[in-house]
């Protein structure tokens, strides 16, 4: 990872509410122009982190640095960041155009000029035809694009998105995430996107930052975080992994890296406890020593060439290099 002087950097950022610590001395460098996802279960501190970057939450301790200047004490609009809110927070009494032009109006820009700029932004998100509508008259996806245009009109260096897709239905969610990704690549600015959905993070992010219990568990390129989880939490949260305790320690291994063989020819023996057809593949759950359940994913044509039954004894086999040692 190359670092640039324009990066957004968190230096030991801490947030305390009374005695509870929401974010505990988090250090991270968000690369400029990258799409970063802050991923974690609810209450892990990801939203607090985002809101501290945005300036809607004060930093208890530490510093937020953007392009070499400490922005932790600046008001939100002076930071070079813009935020897109979870339920979009569009002004219900203002038209789409006025919503988008709001920040320019606050700066005292002439009506003509700010409407021209707003029209540009609406063009970018493909909403020109709806500029006179009120937010209530738009669909969820359209509202989201208005919120996006409103955030982008301030020309931020970093766009902060707080669970932007959670209010949409699953179909629209997949379409909007493709649009977000495309827009980010067109604009070339940094996006920091908070989500609790690992599929969303994997689909969007150049870099994933997994948070749990107020700290960063693991950060890295999406593929690396998925393929080589460092902790049991990350392995389980990202999904698709088995966590097994072997004599040499605890390891994570992808479910599709485990193959089935005859008993006593594999790495270890197991008894099948579940067979589930999942479309593209079949998930086979089996019990190994120490009462541990292991799931293996077998391509469906391979499975049906040689079907297995419940209770059957099998051997499990894998390449040693597919095992990833867990530190916690």
């Amino acid at each position, binding site marked *: 990872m190359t670092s640039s002087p324009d990066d957004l950097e968190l230096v030991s950022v801490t947030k305390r509410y009374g005695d509870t610590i929401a974010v505990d001395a988090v250090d991270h460098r968000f690369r400029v122009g990258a799409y970063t996802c802050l991923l974690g279960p609810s209450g892990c501190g990801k939203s607090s982190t985002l809101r501290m970057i945005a300036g*809607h939450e004060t930093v208890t301790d530490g510093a937020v640095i953007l392009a070499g200047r400490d922005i932790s004490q600046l008001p939100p*609009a*002076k930071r070079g960041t*813009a*935020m897109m*809110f979870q339920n979009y927070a569009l002004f219900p009494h203002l038209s789409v155009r006025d919503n988008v032009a709001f920040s320019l109006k*606050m700066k005292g820009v002439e009506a003509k000029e700010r409407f021209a700029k707003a029209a540009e932004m609406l063009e970018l998100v493909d909403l020109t035809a709806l500029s006179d509508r009120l937010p209530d008259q738009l669909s969820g996806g359209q509202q989201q694009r208005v919120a996006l245009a409103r955030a982008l009109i301030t020309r931020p260096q970093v766009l902060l998105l707080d669970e932007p897709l959670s209010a949409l239905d699953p179909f629209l969610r997949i379409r909007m995430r493709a649009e977000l990704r495309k827009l980010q690549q067109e604009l070339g600015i940094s996006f920091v996107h908070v989500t609790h959905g690992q599929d969303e993070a994997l689909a969007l992010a150049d870099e994933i930052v997994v948070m749990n219990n107020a700290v960063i568990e693991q950060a890295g390129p999406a593929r690396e975080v998925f393929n080589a989880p460092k902790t049991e939490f990350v392995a389980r949260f990202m999904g698709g992994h088995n966590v097994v305790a072997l004599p040499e320690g605890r390891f994570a291994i992808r479910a599709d890296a485990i193959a089935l063989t005859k008993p006593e020819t594999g790495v270890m023996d197991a008894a099948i406890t579940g067979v589930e057809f999942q479309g593209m593949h079949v998930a086979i759950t089996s019990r190994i020593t120490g009462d541990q359940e292991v799931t293996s994913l077998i391509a469906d044509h391979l499975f049906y060439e040689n079907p297995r039954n419940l209770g059957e004894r099998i051997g499990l086999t894998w390449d040693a290099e597919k095992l990833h040692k867990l530190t916690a």
Partner: protein
Amino acid sequence: MLNFLKNRSASGWLMVSPLALVLVFFLVLPIIMIVVVSFWRATEFSIIPAFEFDNYEFLFSSPVTYSVFLNTFKYALITWVFTLGIGFTVAYFLAFHVRTQTWQIALFLLCTIPFWTSNIIRMISWIPFLGRNGIANSALISWGVVDEPLEWLLFSDFAVILALVHLYTLFMVVPIFNTMMRIDKSLIEAARDAGANGAQILWNVIIPLTKPGIMIGTIFVVTLVMGDFITVRFMSGSQSANVGRLISNDIALLQYPSAAATAVVLLLTVLIVIGILLRFVNIRKEL
């Protein structure tokens, strides 16, 4: 009978009928009665059912009517300005500056304490305070602010408006507070994110979104003040008049037809004022 009960529209009518009956007997019928009586003829000693416009003719030809209506509007307007100013400020403080809900409820209940006593008591309690030798005057004299007692503190328009504002500010606080509590707090953050300062947020976000509440409060205050007569009589020491007093004087003189005619004109005036107010703001989504 069973079929009748199963009929959905019939059961609907049955369910609204208690309220409808109450409204018909205690609101619609009395108003019709007043309208009918307003056309009757009255002499010094008798009231004769009739249909003539003498009462209205007399009302509209008397200069007293116009000055009294003007006075009523003056009270309504000035009271509205003060109740709105105070009510909005209090509601704004409660809704946006008090952080915890417990404190919001506690302070809100504090606002309602004056309502634990009756109107009359709240009004009369001003008299020893504002009187010639009252607390206000003695304090001002002892501080050396004035040399002689201020005459206009009591039994004046000042006293009337003071009492009206005191009586009716809560009617402004409640609907405005209610509307403000429904404003999504993330809108304020979004405005701040867009660089709005406190005054800009107030002007561009909070006030536009609070308009329906302001309008409901306005309707309360305007109708209450325009229909009031006892406050004006007590606090002005019977020196000023509004339409309510005109009606109550007629009733005291047993001039029911004339009182009824004045009441009809007042009712229409208030309805027109409300009609105009509703043209400005759509309050339907608040109901």
